[in-house]
Each structure stands twice: as C-alpha cells, then as structure tokens.
C-alpha cells in the first residue's frame, strides 16, 4: 500500500526557505504571489493492505519521527 505524508510548517512559524522562494519568484517577474511555504513529502510503501490500519500506523510514524510537531503539521494520503 502506497501512503504519502505531506509535512508542512505550522502557521505562524517563520519559514525562511518559503520566504526565499517567494522573493525569487517575484524576482523572476511572477506577479500576485501572496506567500510561499515549503514542506516535504515522504512516500511510504507499506505491506499493510487495510487503509484504516495503514493510516493509523503512519500517523504514529509521524508523531514519533517524520514530523516535529513543535513546528510541523502532517497530512496523510492513502494512495492505494
């Protein structure tokens, strides 16, 4: 089972990399950018076949390692 974890910085946490991206895009002439935030994606290949159990397992992985919940949120997509 393929599961995608998207990790993003919590709102309110300064994101210097996002700011740099925003600035660079403006520098390239892209108008109308109201913000850019950078995150990361972790794709997991799991032996588990039950989507609910897969989701629960990945949530635990996020809490224990994949995300730093002091500054990050995570989002789990079971891709099938």
């Amino acid at each position, binding site marked *: 089972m393929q599961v995608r974890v998207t990790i993003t910085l919590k709102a309110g*946490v*300064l994101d*210097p990399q996002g700011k740099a991206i925003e600035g660079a895009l403006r520098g390239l002439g892209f108008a109308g950018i109201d913000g850019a935030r950078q995150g990361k994606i972790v794709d997991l290949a799991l032996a588990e076949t039950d989507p609910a159990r897969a989701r629960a397992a990945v949530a635990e992985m996020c809490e224990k*390692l994949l995300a*730093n919940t*002091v*500054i990050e949120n995570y989002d789990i997509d079971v891709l099938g």
Partner: protein
Amino acid sequence: MRSAVVLFPGSNRDHDMVKALYDVTGFRPTVVWHQDATLPDVDLIVLPGGFSYGDYLRCGAIAARSPAMLDVARKAKAGVRVLGVCNGFQILTEAGLLPGALMRNAHLRFVCKEVKLEVTNDDTDFTRAYRKGQVIRCPVAHHDGNYFADPETLARLEGDGRVAFRYAEGTNPNGSINDIAGILNEAGNVLGMMPHPENLIEALHGGLDGRGLFESVVRTIAA
C-alpha cells in the same frame, strides 16, 4: 569528573569535545556508540556537534530516536547533567528533553564565525564559573540554529531564568528568537546550546572563554 560523549553516525565534533573535557577536567571521557542501550554512570553526558545522519529528515531527528538516547532521557530524569552542543542541542529538542525547535538560519546559509554571548544566568550548573551579564566570545558553526518556541514556552523560559546564553552586541548569527543561544530544561540539569565552547579552550584557539562552561560543571560536581 566522569563524563561520556555519545557518538552518532555523522557526529564530527565528538573529538573536539573529548579533547576539551580531557583538557579541562583531567579525565578522559567514555565514548558511547549510539546503539548502546546503556550509558555508563557518569556525572556529565555530552551530545556533541556534527551532522548525525547527515541532517537528513530534520537535524537531530533520527539520532534522537537511537537506543542510547532512551537511556540519556532516563538518566536526565534522574538528575544526571546533560550537555548538547550544536547538533547535540538539536537532538535534545527532537528528543523532547528541551522545548522548542532549531530551524534553518534566517539567511539560509551555513555560518561559521565568532559571536559574543551574554551569560544570562550564572546560577546554573553550567554557568557558575561566569558572571551574570558577562559577555564572552564563542564560535558558532551551523546551518540550523534559529531557535523557535511558541509564546507561552518562551515566556516560561524567560520567566524561569532558563535562557543560559544569549547572542550579544548584535551578533545573533541565525535569527534566533530573543537572541537565544542556549537554554536549560525545567530541572536545570540539561543544557542545549548552538555555540561551541569546546573550540575556545586553549591558546591555539585564540582565547579561553569556553573553559568556563566545563569548569562550571566541575565546580558543581565537586560541591
């Protein structure tokens, strides 16, 4: 004073720390491999600088989940003094032994330079050889030293005198909130700091300002 330095794959200031501890305390620290589930009984455990696990995922994140860290957490709870420098500080926050997080430097670049540190609290196990308000020199070398904590945590740290060191004289190299360079846990036996006192302990380094930190621990243990 007996001490132990925990070695992770990717640690690279372990050697500097071992030398500094030996130089200041006269005792050679035990080096502990991160896979060892039990650390020896010592007065001070040090998590050295470096790039444990290549800083992959997040700085310190993977090292914080190693077997040795479980024992570090147990011993910290029991009152053993723990010092985390640079990557060691990152590991301590990732392991939940210190609050907050260390984010990418505000200018996004690695920075290696000398900064000024104000000793914010001299009534701690790690700072009693300094004077409160004293400004010392100390080098930094990191990519992710930008300390962040939510407002409540920050208020608690400041209110309880748990900010041990602050970047002084406009030398904040990374955008840390409140110029925070080093913090203590609630019990005061765990210190995390980004600057490298172990790199300013002999004439060759051009100064001795870093010795005070190690001398403080020696003094605390002796008392």
